[in-house]
């Protein structure tokens, strides 16, 4: 069951997005925030339902375990607002990424942590950069073979 998200957690995510991805706090104005199972955080339009307990509202944007972890759905939708800590990959690596593979890259300028992966202005999803290896963060349900890109 979804609950209203505590203010501290909401501020933690907003701060993370601002510091890690350079996202303006303005983008959050139209959304209401909820927490679900497994520390998942959802945003949706301001939806108040009487007498109905929905399975889900809006989309899951983060998981709050030890630290905030952005979801691929979040990065695909809000990628256009991200101004730092994104990694552009070529077509060959895009095919590997979509299959769920990790990537070895040479990218010194990115601070280790979660990153947005892009290909030719298309926002692919989430990865974790440790300075040498880009760990694939795609959920298994999204793994696929890409034939056209």
């Amino acid at each position, binding site marked *: 069951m979804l609950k209203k998200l505590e203010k501290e957690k909401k501020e933690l995510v907003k701060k993370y997005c601002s510091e890690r991805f350079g996202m303006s706090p303005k983008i959050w104005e139209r959304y209401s925030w909820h927490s679900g199972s497994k520390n998942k955080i959802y945003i949706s*339009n301001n939806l108040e*339902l*009487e007498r109905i307990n*929905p399975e889900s509202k809006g989309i899951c944007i983060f998981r709050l375990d030890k630290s905030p972890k952005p979801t691929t759905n979040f990065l*695909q939708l809000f990628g256009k607002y991200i101004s730092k800590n994104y990694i552009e990959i070529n077509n060959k690596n895009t095919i590997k990424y*979509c299959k769920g593979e990790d990537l070895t890259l040479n990218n010194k300028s990115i601070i280790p942590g979660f990153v947005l992966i892009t290909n030719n202005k298309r926002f692919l999803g989430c990865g974790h950069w440790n300075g040498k290896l880009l760990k694939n963060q795609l959920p298994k349900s999204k793994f696929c073979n*890409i034939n056209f890109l």
Partner: protein
Amino acid sequence: MDRYQKIRNEIIKKYNCLVDDKKKFAESINIPLKQSFRINTLKEKKETVIAKLKEYDSKITNVRWSDNAYITKLNNLGSSLEHFVGHIYIQELTSMIPPLIVKDLIKDINIIDCCAAPGSKTTQIAAMMDNKGHIIANDARHARLKSLRGNLDRLGVTNTSVTLRDFKSFPNTKADLYFVDAPCSSEGTIRKKNSVARIWKEKDYLRFNKLQKQLLSKACEMAPSGSTVVYSTCTFSPDENEKVVSEILNEYDMKMKHIKIENLKSEPGITQWNNEEYHSGVEKCMRIWPHHNDTDAFFIARMEKC
């Protein structure tokens, strides 16, 4: 003759009496459908996506009756990067019709999609609303919620709540617009490979009719005065179409509204079938035949609660 050809022949024989051009109807049933899709404007501009897709198929065409419905000769667009990132949604052309007939209403409003999975119409409506307003996307089967949830996530829909309920016992909820895309015999999807599993018997049509009427009744009961109810199926069968609407018009205070989509050829609902007369209002329903627009078959009705 294979089993599916037998089913196709049976359908042609059964509905030939309702069509304007028997030969073209029979021919169209035997021609497989091309893949169709729409652009998800919640994530990207149409022009940008189309320019990219034309690198894969230069002959992608926009249909005449919708500015966001396209056809491609490719049959595996699902393996394109545009699909992966949620820029496109592969959808039958006829399935795009219900939101289009209420284009005048779709803005910042409350909508209930009673039988929403896998989310084709819900995601289309959300895009038309630009993620504003509120949609309740309901489905009765847990197994189908996964695909619904997956499509909402992939397309970046934030204005939708997903509920798991048998709509027949859904709590009364006021909305401006209700979509009842009811489970049906799906005969109209016959052009899709192996889509119709068997030849339906009279008792099957009666079973579908009963369920469809229950779902539509529920929507009509909970709809406040002035709200709109859209009923649709993907079948030829009058028992699941005009008969359901006719029974609703006889029982509820609903007013039929005229439907028109520019450049889409359609026919009015029929008023007689199997020696049964229907309510005259069903003539305002819309029937889409496969040979008219090179699509599946479809049936749709727009009603307003008095």
